[in-house]
């Protein structure tokens, strides 16, 4: 039932892919300020599945949306904190974007600075979907009802993957016998069967000839004549050429590469601005304006065409994107992808919709996926299949997953590490196996004893325990430790000070005064 924690030791020296530090998110409503998140910190390492678990209304979903900075504004805002995605702090400019004046709980004035917000959104739109993707609780609501599944998935590819598509098209059009020969010798030098498959897959993907993957495999399996195989593969690829306008593709590639350069430069400029390095700011600013001048002078006509005849200009790319989409749909085990790609969300079942969502989130090969209760709206068999897909993707691609759920069984089945949330705080964080076998925080203990379990014998009581009370109203949260009104072991200090999340044993963190005296600095 419980996933073995295997690579924890190895992870110690790794850099986290997503690191959240002291994240505070609040919602300004007419009834008062909802303190949804109160200094949440956690990090997700590459290749692991990190679970966030807790009762309804304890801030799990707010955490996940905050990580992507998708909190709807108004009413919500991230107040402070740091979110590092792949080493880049996406919310370093909070003070530049808005100034918040709190006069009273119900009277909050927010002054927004449009220019900074626009730049922030521009930067984030390149990060979202590309480096980090998200799937949602109710796939039916999360898919655009008036766009086909294919269009919605292709949109991601067309936004983030133009450069790689250009590369593979160019490679396919200019394929040489030497490259094929290299591939064949490479293939024969590998002994492992799965490695061989992977090699063929890589080859097919980099030349955008995925539909020939099977025939190449069978060709390699049936024949030993290298010269013959080489000619066959070359023929296959050459027949697949569609007589595209290579000049056109080169131009588009050039334009999107330039766009990418501009973006990278903007990131560097932002970093320099944060560090207050004036000479670097000057340098990056001049570089940026140089790039923009190139954009304006040499791509004027292309930009005009893209603006008014996008579909026509990009039609080769759309064809490639469609092929990738079909591949993605096959990857997530959708039956009949050729039909599904042209159907609308309402024509699919819930499980299919969630699969399509997953395919969409994988479209640009992100290194991390946020799954916000992806199985809650689905029935149990579909739920198992979806979990299986997520686990497979984690294993095959090495994609990190932030998995949010209230279902402890799902956590046990999928996650490597777990954070337990209560009322906007992470109260305990540990490996899955440890949290199930040795929960420390009274809230976690309560959660564990409220679940029927097959692997533990219950000596005394047959009745399931519940935690008394409900999640507090976060407009006026309890002072000190937010769990103390419901806690069996509450002490005097609990209502006065807020416990700090401290490591009590190796990789096991708890925020409770039962285990440590350290309190959060106000």
């Amino acid at each position, binding site marked *: 039932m419980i996933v073995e924690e295997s690579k924890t030791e190895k992870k110690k020296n790794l850099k986290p892919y997503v690191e959240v530090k002291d994240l505070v998110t609040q919602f300004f409503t007419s009834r008062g300020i909802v303190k949804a998140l109160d200094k949440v910190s956690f990090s997700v390492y590459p290749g692991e599945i990190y679970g966030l678990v807790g009762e309804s209304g304890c801030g799990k979903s707010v955490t996940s*949306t905050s990580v*992507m900075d*998708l909190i*709807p504004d108004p009413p919500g805002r991230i107040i402070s904190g740091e979110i590092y995605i792949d080493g880049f702090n996406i919310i370093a400019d909070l003070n530049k974007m808005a100034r918040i004046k709190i006069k009273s709980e119900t009277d909050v004035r927010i002054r927004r600075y449009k220019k900074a917000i*626009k730049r922030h*959104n*521009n930067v*984030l*739109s*390149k*990060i*979202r*979907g*590309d480096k980090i*993707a*998200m799937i*949602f609780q*109710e796939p039916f*609501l*999360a*898919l*655009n*009802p*008036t766009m*086909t599944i294919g269009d919605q998935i292709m*949109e*991601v590819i067309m*936004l*983030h993957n133009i450069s790689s598509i250009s590369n593979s098209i160019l490679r396919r059009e200019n394929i040489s016998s030497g490259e094929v020969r290299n591939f064949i010798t490479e293939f024969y030098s590998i002994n492992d069967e799965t490695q061989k498959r992977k090699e063929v897959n890589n080859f097919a993907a980099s030349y955008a000839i995925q539909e020939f993957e099977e025939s190449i495999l069978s060709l390699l399996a049936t024949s030993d004549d290298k010269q013959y195989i080489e000619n066959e593969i070359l023929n296959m690829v050459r027949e697949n050429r569609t007589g595209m306008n290579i000049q056109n593709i080169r131009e588009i590639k050039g334009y999107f590469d330039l766009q990418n350069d501009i973006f990278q430069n903007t990131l560097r400029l932002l970093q320099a601005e944060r560090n207050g390095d004036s000479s670097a700011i000057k340098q990056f600013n001049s570089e940026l304006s140089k790039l923009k001048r190139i954009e304006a002078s040499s791509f004027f006509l292309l930009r005009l065409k893209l603006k008014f005849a996008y579909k026509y200009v990009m039609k080769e790319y759309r064809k490639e994107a469609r092929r990738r989409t079909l591949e993605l749909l096959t990857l997530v085990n959708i039956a009949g992808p050729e039909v599904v790609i042209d159907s*609308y969300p*309402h024509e699919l079942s819930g499980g299919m919709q969630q699969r399509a*969502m997953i395919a*969409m989130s994988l479209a*640009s090969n992100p290194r991390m996926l946020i799954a916000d209760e992806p199985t809650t709206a689905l029935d149990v068999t579909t739920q198992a299949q979806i979990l299986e897909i997520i686990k497979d993707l984690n294993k095959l691609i090495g994609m990190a997953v932030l998995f949010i759920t209230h279902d402890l069984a799902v956590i046990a089945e999928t996650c490597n590490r777990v954070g337990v949330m209560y009322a906007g705080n992470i109260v305990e964080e540990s490996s899955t196996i440890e949290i199930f076998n040795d929960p420390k925080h009274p809230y976690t203990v309560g959660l564990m004893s409220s679940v029927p379990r097959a692997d533990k014998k219950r000596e005394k009581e047959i009745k399931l325990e519940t935690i008394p009370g409900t999640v507090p109203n976060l407009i006026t949260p309890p002072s000190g430790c937010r769990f103390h009104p419901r806690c069996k072991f509450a002490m005097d200090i609990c209502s006065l000070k807020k416990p700090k999340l401290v490591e009590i044993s190796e990789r096991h963190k708890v925020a409770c005064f039962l285990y440590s005296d350290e309190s959060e600095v106000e």
Partner: protein
Amino acid sequence: MELKYYIIRRLLVLIPTIIGLLLLTFILLRAIPVNDLIANYVNQKATPAEKALEKQQAITLLGLGQPLPVQFFTYLTDVANGNLGNMYSAYYNGGVLRGIELFLPVTLEIAIFTVIFSVLISIPLGTFIGSRPNSVSDSVGRVFSLIFYAMPIFWLALMLQYAFGKNLLFLGSYGLPINGQGFPIQQVGFVHNHTGYSYSVPTHMLFIDAVLNLDFPLAVVAFEHLILPVLTLSMTVLAGLLRFIRAGMVDTSNQEYIKTARAKGVPEKLVLKRHIRKNALLPSVTVIGLLVAGLLGGAVVVEDIFQITGLGRLSLAAITGTSGNGANIQFFGVAGTVLFFGLILMLTNLIVDIVYAFLDPRIRY
């Protein structure tokens, strides 16, 4: 293929609807006392004996003595044969169908320009204010649309006339031509019929005909005559549409799939254009159909105020029907114009439904 059958089905449904419409107008009009209905056929200056004889003759001629169902059936047969009867008024004398043929295009021209103008203005404006709810521009837009939505058409028409036509706000001493008279008619391919009415060919809409005949000076004049009526009618339609599009935009931007779009990394501009606006405009298509109904009612008023020779004034003339012997209601005139107003409304709604089915993949037909 399915859409084709849907259209055929909807067209077939039109037939009972039209019969229902005819029945309703027939019953309502037949509720008028017979004396008033046949007043046209009786010489009021004649002696009582002669009057009684003429009355009797008129009743026999029109078949008013027969049972009502028989009368209705006779009326239906006549309508099916294209015989809508005659009407007599100061505005128009002659066959009702002929009159409709003459005057309907003028009303249609105004209606078409009104719809085009309001849609062209309200979509970008609604997108703009709907994408920044509770901002200053949003508040201003909402207040103005509410004012224009609530404003009576006749008052607005008079005020516009006063401001641009008579009081010469900024158009010099001439102002805009505010009535439908004074066209240089000899320049375009006009056709005179036997009653002396002249109309343009081929569409009977002066502005479009002038453009088609490459008579641009006339087109300019015709266009000037269209400005104020179209502006008046547009204000209500525009205000209604604007409010609806704005509400749709705000509602759609709170949907979950907009969050998905942002999570995919779609830039804000594209989120607005591709995801929010497209979904927000869908219900507005239905509203356009509803607003056309209000527009037809407004056309009667506007045509009267701006002296436009349109179907609205024809129906007004049929109701007041001044012809020699004082005011007499024109049965056939009223029935005919009501039938055509109804037809326009039904066809508009049919078109709207088809367009909606075409745009929204969720509609099953």
